[in-house]
Every structure is written in structure tokens, then in C-alpha cells.
């Protein structure tokens, strides 16, 4: 990985330049919320955005999309219609989430719908300063070393740009006039200072060490029932979670014709039908059982298989759940701490 520098005053020019690679997306403010949107005017990008309402996954497997159209003679898939995109402004936690989604969709079993979108997406990350809901320091997501093409760290009047892929390298080389390749000791010092300042900003303290064991020993804990009583089963936690990958597949028939579309739509382990099988048996009839599934998956099973929790510490569930059931409070409760959710 190499690093170069980009003056802040050159950012607009640089984004215009890389915008030639694909449709530019970034965080904008809409009705008081930050959302990832296609960027018409670079001025609309809001770099104060911390966590967008829906995470970046909405671009890699949209909440609802057509997999293919079918009729009596066969099917036509939708893969060729996937556009090339450049996503600007993702934070370290967003990029870590992407690496987690890759484990599901792009490694052992390649999901073509995810994989094609992934391959046609360039990622330009941007550093951030945590707020009172962030806890990425506990999930080892303070910095990223993979999963991006370029990553910009805000060091005052310039960005230190980490080049994370050959595509990123091409992007930098395509705008030679805007890029300063001369990175020196002073810049390194500034970067270290920035990282130190950043890690001092965390307001939440949580330790995820040993969570797989704690979860294993908590299967009979009253915590599940207590939280299950409160849970509204609205699925909001899974919808905003950047690492939740579950989906459902359903055919939408054209009215009265032997044709239609096969749709893929986000599903949630909080929904009643998620664990309902043919014959009418539901493996997780009780809300408490569903919560247990969600949190054991995030904090135990995923760690067992991939060596890290399926949580990036982004704080979206803290921001979203109306009744305060989130990873942070659940971990604290399972660890035996009194917390008010």
C-alpha cells in the first residue's frame, strides 16, 4: 500500500476526475438525515456525515431488486444492467462491513448479484471523528487496511490518501496534477497525531473480549426474555445493520400472463416468517429466541467461523431501535452490567 497527498482545494477536481470511472455516490443531507445518494453536484456531498441512515450495503444488494425476468421460454437476468459506481465518503466501519459481507457473498459461494455489483464499485473512504454512539474502537475497526481503493484521512488542509488497490493506483495516476506523491516525515507525524486525537474521542467503553464464551454460557440467561418482551419485531436493527445479509426471494407475476420477475428483498431474523418452515413449524416462535439468534450470530457464531464479530461498532442499532435493544446494551447486559436501554 502506498500513500500520496491531495490538497483539500483539489478534492472537487479529483472527484470529477474519478467520476469518469463510474457514477459518483456519496453522503448527502436529506430531511435532516444523512443518506447515500447519487451525486449530481459535488457541492451536495456532506462530509460531516457520520453514519448514513441505511448503510452502504443498500448499493451492493438493494432492499428490493429484480434478479431476472421470466416467461414461458426462459429468463433474462439483470446483471448486465448493473452500473459502475464510485462511492465516496465511506468510513472505516463501512469498509469493514463490506469485508464482512464479502465473507457471505463473495468468498466460498459467490453470489453473482452481489459479486457483480461489488466488482463494479470503486470505494473511496474518508476518515471520521466518532460521536457518542460509535464504538468501532472495540471491534478493531478504527483503521482499515483492505476493502477500499482509496482512503482519505483528513489532516487539516490536505488528505493523506492511502492507495488500497490497483484501481486506486490508476485513479491517482490519472490525475497527476492534483496529487502530491511526496509524503514525508512531517505528514506521518500529522497522521499519527490525527489517529491519536480520533481515538480519544470515543465516549462509549465496551470490551468484546470473550463474548463468544459469554454468549455460550448465557443461553439460559433471563436477559433474552426481558428484551424479548420489549422487542417490537420491526426489523429496524437488521435493516440498518451494515453486516446483516439475510434476504427472501419471491416471484412477482405479471397480471394474468405467464411471465414475471423474481425479486430479492431484505429479510430479517426479527420477522415471524423468517424461521417458519413448510408444515407450519416455527423454529423461533418467541421474540426472545429471535433476539438470541441475532446476537449469537453477531457475537459468537461469526467469530467462530471468521475470527471477528459481525459488528463494526457503527452505532446504527443504537441510533435506530425505538426500545433500546442494540449490540452495545445487549453486550453490557450479558456481561452482567446494569444498563438502561
Amino acid at each position, binding site marked *: 500500500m502506498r500513500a500520496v497527498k491531495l490538497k483539500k482545494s483539489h478534492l472537487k477536481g479529483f472527484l470529477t476526475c474519478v467520476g469518469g470511472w463510474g457514477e459518483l455516490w456519496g453522503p448527502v443531507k*436529506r*430531511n*435532516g*438525515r444523512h*443518506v447515500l445518494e447519487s451525486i449530481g453536484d459535488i457541492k451536495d456531498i456532506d462530509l460531516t456525515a457520520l453514519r448514513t*441512515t*441505511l448503510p452502504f450495503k443498500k448499493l451492493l444488494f438493494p*432492499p*428490493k431488486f429484480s434478479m431476472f425476468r421470466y416467461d414461458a421460454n426462459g429468463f433474462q437476468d439483470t446483471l448486465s444492467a448493473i452500473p459502475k459506481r464510485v462511492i465516496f465518503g465511506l468510513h472505516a466501519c463501512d469498509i469493514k462491513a463490506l469485508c464482512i459481507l464479502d465473507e457471505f457473498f463473495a468468498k466460498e459461494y459467490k453470489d453473482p448479484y452481489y459479486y457483480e455489483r461489488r466488482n463494479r464499485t470503486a470505494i473511496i473512504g474518508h476518515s471520521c471523528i466518532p460521536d457518542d454512539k460509535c464504538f468501532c474502537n472495540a471491534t478493531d475497526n478504527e483503521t482499515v487496511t483492505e476493502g477500499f481503493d482509496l482512503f482519505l484521512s483528513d489532516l487539516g488542509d490536505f488528505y493523506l490518501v492511502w492507495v488500497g488497490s490497483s484501481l486506486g493506483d490508476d485513479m491517482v495516476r490519472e490525475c497527476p496534477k492534483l496529487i502530491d506523491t511526496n509524503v514525508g516525515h512531517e505528514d506521518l507525524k500529522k497522521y499519527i497525531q490525527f489517529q491519536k486525537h480520533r481515538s480519544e474521542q470515543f465516549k462509549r467503553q465496551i470490551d468484546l473480549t470473550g463474548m463468544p464464551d459469554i454468549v455460550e454460557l448465557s443461553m439460559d440467561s433471563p436477559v433474552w426474555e426481558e428484551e424479548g*418482551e*420489549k*422487542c*417490537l*419485531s*420491526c*426489523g*429496524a436493527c437488521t*435493516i*440498518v445493520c451494515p453486516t446483516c445479509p439475510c434476504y427472501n426471494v*419471491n416471484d*412477482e*407475476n*405479471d*397480471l*394474468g*400472463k405467464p411471465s414475471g420477475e423474481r425479486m430479492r428483498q*431484505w429479510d*430479517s431474523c426479527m*420477522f*415471524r*416468517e423468517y424461521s417458519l418452515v413448510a408444515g407450519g413449524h416455527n423454529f423461533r416462535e418467541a*421474540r426472545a429466541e429471535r433476539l438470541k439468534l441475532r446476537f449469537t450470530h453477531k457475537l459468537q457464531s461469526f467469530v467462530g467461523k471468521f475470527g471477528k464479530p459481525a459488528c463494526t461498532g457503527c452505532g446504527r442499532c443504537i441510533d*435506530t431501535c*425505538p*426500545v433500546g435493544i442494540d449490540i452495545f446494551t445487549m453486550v453490557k447486559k450479558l456481561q452482567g452490567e446494569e444498563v438502561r436501554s
Partner: protein
Amino acid sequence: MERKKLDIGLYGFTGCNGDQLVIIHSEDKLLDFFASANIRSFSLAKSDNEQTPLDIAFIEGSISSQEQVEHVQEIRQRSALLVAIGNCACYGGIQAMELGREGWDRRFQSVYGENFFEVRTPIESKPIDAFVAVDFRLPGCPIDADQFFAVYSSLIRKTKPQMPDYPVCAECRWRENECLLLKGQLCLGPLIAGGCKAVCPSHNLPCVGCFGPVEEANVSSEFALLKEKGFTVEEIRRRLRIHSGSGVLKSLKNLFGEV
């Protein structure tokens, strides 16, 4: 292989006919709709209605007279499937917001006085399933056109329609709206069946529950949450009862001992 076209009937009882109107207003679908089956009866759309045996009857409106009871029973007898469409048919509609409470006679009299009804024998308004078995419910005030045509399309292919098992909140989050509950508003989103695409919260209006309760609505948690936000039990209950009619009686009874 051409399937034999099914025989379909659409009927309206007590309500505003808004659900049938949603179908009629789907101009881009109408030709396909009328070609997709033998539409034997469609009370709002045509006058040459035939009362024949049906594969599927779609019924909107609640039942509010003895004559309607007999009519809906007669339709049930000649229909293989019966689908309640719209909030009135599914849960009783706003005319059923006092359902489960004593004193219908008194309420009726305070509106109509001692008038004698010649052509109708009024009864307390109730949803369709209070009188006949209902196979599917397609709620909404009015119904959502996309959902109607998706369900209709599944049914005429004799496949099980996919109905949302999630509340309005899920659709609201998909649309990246700001959560009105978190803003302290009396939003019924968590209790109410999805299918409306969270249309009200998307316009900054809290959900009033016109799709009726989602199957496993956590009524006690929503009440606790809204009480914490400063609303009284009576305010919440009144809001919930506007549209949820028969759908929330059991939960309210369990929670408060009365509806």
C-alpha cells in the same frame, strides 16, 4: 398451457367503496385485469353483474345490517375462496372503533333517533369474519394497488400470496425516513401491518394504523414506549382504535381488562 379462467366477483358492503376505487383507478392494469379472469360481478364498475358460483370473491366494507349478513353468507356459499379487502372488511373500519363495548343501541339512537328503517334492519357494524369464514385479508384504507394486484395475481394462479409479516417500521426504515417515534410522536408503526410502503411517515405524518395490526404486534411494549414519551393510555388507545377495530380487542383486553 392455457389455464381455464377463474370466475371472480367483487362486492362492496358498508364503506366508502374506496378499495374498489383503487382497482378502478389502476388504469394501466385494467385491461389485463379484466382479461385475466371472468369478472362476474364488480359492483362499483359495472351493472350487468351475475350472481354465479365463484372461484374467488373479493369483499370490501363491513356488515351493518341483517340483509347484508344474509347477502355475505350467500356469497360465501357460492365462493371457493373469500378475500376481505380493505380495513372495513378486515377489521370493521372506523365504524367499528367502539366494537367490543356495550351500548351500541344507545349510540345508534343518539345518531338516528327513533326513526324506523324500512329497507334495512341495522345491526352493530362488524368485519366480514364475524359472519363468514375469510380465507385472506388484504387490509388498508384504502388498499395498496400494487399489493392488491400481487395478491390477486398469485390467487388466480392458485399460489399462496405473499403478505408482509412485518410492521410499517420495516418499510419506513427501507425508505430511510426519520423515525417519528424517536422524535416523540404518537406513531403506531410498530403495531401496524406493512404493505402501505410507509406512505404517511414518508410525509412526516405518524402512522394512524389504517392497515390494522400486524400479526404479532407487541401492543404492551408500544404502550409502554408511548407512555414513556408522555402520552396517556387513553390517547394511545383512541388512536389505535380508529382503524384497528376487531384486530386489537384481544390485546387490549389482555392489557387493560377492557377494550
